[in-house]
């Protein structure tokens, strides 16, 4: 991959995984604002010259490396584990199989374990279904979905983003990239009246708003560098790390030159749901220095357990 062969990423979208904006937007003012923000993004995608919509979903965990959805026509009816009572989500998504297969190869070239999945009835996760259904309802543009490996951490996630860049550049495709993730992800553990939905705690709300300021300023790389703090402060410890900002920065470009726009920020059963766009621009913002090394190839976890033991 030559340095000059840069991929063209038109803009990025950060959006929440829960199904209320799709299934019950009218249930609260907040949900309908999120829905309106999704609709705005859909319009912008339609008006763009995107060749592919690329989704990284935090609600699709994988174990065997990184899974890449490659079924040409994925057709099923999805039901959410928690919000099944809001209704079913029938879908038909058209995948860019050419992209998916090259993406696998490019992952492998960078040392990642990866595989495509092409099975009728494969359970596409709630977050991907909600995002693709709202952002690209008529399959005007082919898409591709990437899983989030349960065990992967910073290096692997950054290298995954770089493999996306390799693939887009190789295929000369213009992309809209989508991260499906909550900000704070703690939900209420009881059923609530949607009209009374609010962010679970003041602390979660404070942190979410700080993150939104960064997004608004286009400081994507700064957010990427703050991922471990975000994980410790406002993420339920379900996986090893908060990875969306790592992936988004590695995919879009590890800098702070973006025009950010927060289209909506609302509670989704207590979690922080935001619809945000980031468009590459000029002019740099940022007042932080970081010394974490950038990483181009994944060489596996350093095995700490075996080091320093008595021979």
């Amino acid at each position: 991959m030559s340095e000059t062969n840069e991929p063209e990423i038109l803009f990025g979208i950060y959006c929440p995984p829960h199904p209320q904006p799709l299934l019950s937007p009218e249930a609260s003012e907040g949900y309908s604002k999120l829905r309106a923000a999704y609709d705005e993004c859909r319009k912008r995608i339609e008006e763009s010259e995107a060749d592919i919509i690329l989704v990284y979903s935090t609600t699709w965990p994988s174990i065997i490396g990184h899974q890449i959805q490659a079924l040409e026509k994925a057709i099923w009816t999805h039901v959410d584990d928690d919000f099944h009572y809001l209704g079913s989500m029938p879908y038909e998504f058209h995948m860019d199989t050419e992209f998916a297969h090259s993406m696998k190869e490019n992952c492998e070239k960078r040392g990642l374990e990866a595989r495509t999945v092409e099975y009728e009835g494969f359970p596409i996760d709630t977050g991907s279904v909600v995002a693709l259904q709202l952002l690209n309802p008529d399959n005007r543009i082919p898409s591709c979905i990437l899983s989030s490996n349960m065990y992967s951490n910073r290096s692997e996630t950054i290298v995954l983003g770089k493999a996306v860049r390799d693939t887009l550049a190789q295929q000369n495709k213009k992309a809209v990239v989508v991260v499906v993730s909550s900000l704070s992800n703690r939900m209420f553990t009881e059923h609530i009246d949607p009209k009374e939905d609010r962010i679970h705690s003041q602390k979660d709300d404070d942190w979410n708003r700080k993150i939104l300021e960064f997004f608004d300023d286009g400081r994507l790389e700064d957010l990427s560098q703050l991922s471990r703090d975000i994980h410790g402060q406002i993420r339920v410890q379900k996986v090893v790390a908060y990875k969306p900002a790592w992936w988004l920065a590695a995919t879009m470009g590890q800098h702070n030159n973006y025009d950010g726009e927060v289209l909506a920020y609302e509670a989704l059963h207590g979690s922080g749901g935001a619809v945000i766009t980031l468009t590459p621009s000029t002019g740099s913002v940022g007042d932080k220095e970081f010394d974490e090394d950038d990483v181009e190839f994944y060489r596996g976890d350093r095995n700490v357990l075996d080091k320093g033991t008595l021979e």
Partner: protein
Amino acid sequence: MAKGQIVAGCLAPHPPHLVYADNPPQNEAYSEGGWETLRWGYQRLARKLKNIDYDAIVIFTPHWQTYIGTHFLGLPEFKSKSVDPVFPNLFRYNYDLQVDVELSEAMRDAASQEGIITKMMTNPDFRVDYGTITSCHLLNPEWDKPIVTISSNRNTHYYSPEVMIEQATALGRACAKAIEESGKRVVLVASHSLSHRHFVEEAPLPEDMSKEHIYNHSQYVWDMKIVEMMRDGKSREVIDIMPEFTEQTIAETEGGGLIWMLGAMGFPDFPAEIYGYQSVIGTGNVIACWDPNDDTREYVL
């Protein structure tokens, strides 16, 4: 009406590899076998269950993950295809199963009365999770008994392993009460592995047993400690040590299934029957059964 009772409690791990290795007609993938230690153990336990008179299987699964309370299957029939999201190459299983809705609702009501947040699942498009399908297939390949699936509320991650112990024990007590009042004879199933660190790469032939081993020795030692306590009838001690076990081995016990089952059975002090232990893609799996009947309890392995 005679009092209902729990006639057996099974710890039944659900790696889809075991169904894949069996090549049942319901599964689309084809294998050359593999993981016989577990599969033969399952076959022996399935034969034992054939000789027990029971009305329904109640199964607690960590692959129906709910954050807003505990959910119960609430329609009489579910028919669809279950595709494992992690191992779709191995598990694409066409199922057609019956649910004991009456028992499901009774357990849900009893749990609600205990102050547990609950929900009945009545969406006909819902796909039953692969943990339920795998464990039930291996314990009862004929599928001739109705089941009830109970979801795993994510207490361990949301609060702590200790909160999970409190909540899952309370849920177990409530389910036991409902079973007693129902007059039914029920087999309980906790569907999960013990240690649960996977390899993140798969052998080109997944059933190549020359590649299969536990992820690391520490996981093995922990698993053996737990199995030994089960053998010795120390079920309360298994639960007491569980927070540490779960943390040290990333154990699938975090979902609460074993706690729920042993809680429902009143933390039995009789020995568990052990049917086999083996690793699957690095995770540790034991098949065990708690048989409350002194006359039929066996020393299996």
